């Protein structure tokens, strides 16, 4: 653990350009920008394909398999279809806000990938506040959603967007607290450093933190079982009702790109990023990201949707206290016993997680039921 080295007045030197990169800073930036954009787009297409096929198999049917061999061109067909649709802007909409909303939603998602390490030292920018940057940027996407709800000029879109904002803001807190647990154990905010420190993947050292982060991440990106913002069988069709054509494509893309981004962050924080034997590191990274995404698809297929008040109750009454206790326990472990091998913490943390979940499940009660009218 690098805690002993990390005195408060000696920050780690920020590596802007790796020492052996030819051409200097601007070529490094250009190369990684292109790589990130290509990576995000291709991974999103792969994610859409994986979701439709895996969900289909789990429902004992095939997914799409006619467009291209094994249906591999289905996301491309979807993209072409949605591009060719007419772009309708409602008359009562706020034009500038309506036009800007998809952009404001999509840009932060791409920016998250700037600090995610694909290989040892291979990032766009190895910020020493990496994970803090990620948390800050992912909150901007919510502003985009709210702009979409307001800019549509539709009462129900606004309601849907407000629900979304409330949910995202509530789930930020357990998310950040779970991250702080990992940061304490690894001793650094820089994503590259976190991966470098993971001799044991942090999913074992922080099981409760992983669970909290996973649930909070699903809620942040509006995935089932928390997808009431875009629910089909419910009333308000959500904030993207009034969008069609390329703008709708942007929102669709944002949904999957955020899912991939969260999967990438989970991989980096909890599953030891690009580390692994035999295969090249970037391949490990992609495989692990898809495994996490597959677990998200799996929960989407199985679980029904929660109601909005149950969603908020889950965040504030269940996840938040658990995250606080997790943080407290981790801090005690790190400060009081800095030299013990981490395997002991693995066993202790699993036991504490099991006890806490059992205890909290017994006490957790959602009070809101029928309201007298």
């Amino acid at each position, binding site marked *: 653990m690098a805690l002993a080295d990390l005195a408060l007045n000696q920050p780690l030197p920020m590596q802007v350009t790796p020492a052996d990169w030819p051409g200097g800073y601007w070529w490094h930036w250009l190369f990684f920008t292109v790589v990130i954009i290509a990576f995000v787009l291709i991974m999103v297409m792969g994610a859409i394909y994986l979701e439709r096929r895996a969900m289909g198999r789990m*429902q*004992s049917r095939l997914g799409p398999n006619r467009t291209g061999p094994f249906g591999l061109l289905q996301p491309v067909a979807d993209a072409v279809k949605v591009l060719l649709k007419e772009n309708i802007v409602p008359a009562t909409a706020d034009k500038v806000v309506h036009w800007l909303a998809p952009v404001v939603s999509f840009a932060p998602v791409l920016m998250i990938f700037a600090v995610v390490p694909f290989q040892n030292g291979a990032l766009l920018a190895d910020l020493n506040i990496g994970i803090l940057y990620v948390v800050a940027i992912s909150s901007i996407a919510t502003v985009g959603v709210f702009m979409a709800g307001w800019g549509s000029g539709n009462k129900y879109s606004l309601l849907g967007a407000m629900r979304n904002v409330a949910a995202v803001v509530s789930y930020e807190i357990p998310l950040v607290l779970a991250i702080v647990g990992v940061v304490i154990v690894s001793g650094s905010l820089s994503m590259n450093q976190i991966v470098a420190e993971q001799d044991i993947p942090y999913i074992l050292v922080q099981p409760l933190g992983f669970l909290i982060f996973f649930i909070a991440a699903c809620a942040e990106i509006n995935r089932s079982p928390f997808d009431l913002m875009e629910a089909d069988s419910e009333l308000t069709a959500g904030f993207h009702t009034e969008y069609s054509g390329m703008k709708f494509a942007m929102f669709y893309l944002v949904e999957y790109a955020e899912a991939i981004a969260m999967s990438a962050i989970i991989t980096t924080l909890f599953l030891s990023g690009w580390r692994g034997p035999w295969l090249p590191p970037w391949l490990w990274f992609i495989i692990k990201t898809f495994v996490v995404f597959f677990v998200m698809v799996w929960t989407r297929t199985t679980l029904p*949707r929660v*109601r909005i008040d149950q969603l908020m109750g889950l965040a504030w009454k269940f996840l938040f206290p658990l995250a606080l206790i997790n943080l407290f326990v981790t801090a005690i472990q790190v400060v009081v016993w800095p030299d013990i091998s981490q395997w002991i913490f693995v066993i202790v943390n699993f036991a504490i997680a099991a006890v806490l979940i059992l205890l909290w499940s017994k006490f957790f009660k959602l009070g809101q*039921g029928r309201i007298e009218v």
Partner: protein
Amino acid sequence: MTTTREFTLKTEPFVLNIGPVHPSTHGVYRMRCTLDGEVVIDIEPIFGYLHRGIEKLAEERTYTGFIPLTDRLDYISPMSNNLGYCLAVEKLAGIKVPERAEYIRVIMAELQRLANHCVAIGSMLNDAGAYFTPFMYTFRERERIVDLFDMVCGQRLTYNYMRIGGVSQDIPAEFLPALQKLVDRLTRFIEEYENLLKLNEILLARAKGVGILEKDTAINCGISGPVARASGIKWDLRRNDPYSIYDRFEFDIPTCENGDCYDRYRVRIEEMRQSLRIIEQAMKQVPDGPVKADVPHLIRPPAGEAYAHIEAPKGELGYYIVSDNSIAPYRCHIRPTSLINLAALRQMVKGWKVADLIIIFGSIDITMGEVDR
């Protein structure tokens, strides 16, 4: 100077139209809901979008020629509709049905109950948000049942199988072995399906305690079928007013106490198990013989009136036929199960949220063909 100001948040209820084109799978039913935020204060049901004048058409078709039209009433369970009508006419004309036909009728009616509950459970869970997975599983099983119906009468939805005085044709030789395989398969399927969603915490939170129908309200509104049995009323026409040969079989009547959505789901699953029991007993006892009494196609019952009711999968389905000794009924009135069950929706829904409204509506299990006739 003292000022007393009352800080009350004035809200106004607004009227929302959950239109005839439904996001969920229940047909053309329109509800005008008065909402206060998310809470439903009142609903006004508007139906009649599927009215086809079947009761009037009965006066222009012969008694046998009306049987295809009864298929189209509750199109999820046509065998039950056929059976009810044939029982009414047989009561009117005093016709005795041969033994083999009785057994075949019971087998078909119970298979139809299974198929109907497959649709009901799948649709309700689909409304709860489980993204089509339970829906696909139950529809897969319904496919197996409908294949058997296809083997017997040639169609998959509008069977037109029962005739006045028996059934139209004998079952083919491969029906009973296939039925045995079906019974084994369905027994295993129900076990696996229970594992999927019976104890699921999210489903319990969405459906337990939601939409409670009190016993007294249910009796006052005339509710029948699984909805009534879930509220604690132990009333089943197969036991309390036996028709056909149901008094020869051993089966239980499942009831639950609370009357919420979860209980209605449980009652339907248990009824599926009891139907399998009845089918197993009936299969072993089928005698040989004719399958239709010697009744002409163009039957002229003596003048009079008769009412026959059966335990259709959705509740008590009754046919009231008045005859004036001609080839067509003078008046045929149908007691529509779904319409009478729908009358309780208003009481069940007040005070719950919009998301609950959808799942409560799904749990009553309505087919608009029967409501509107």
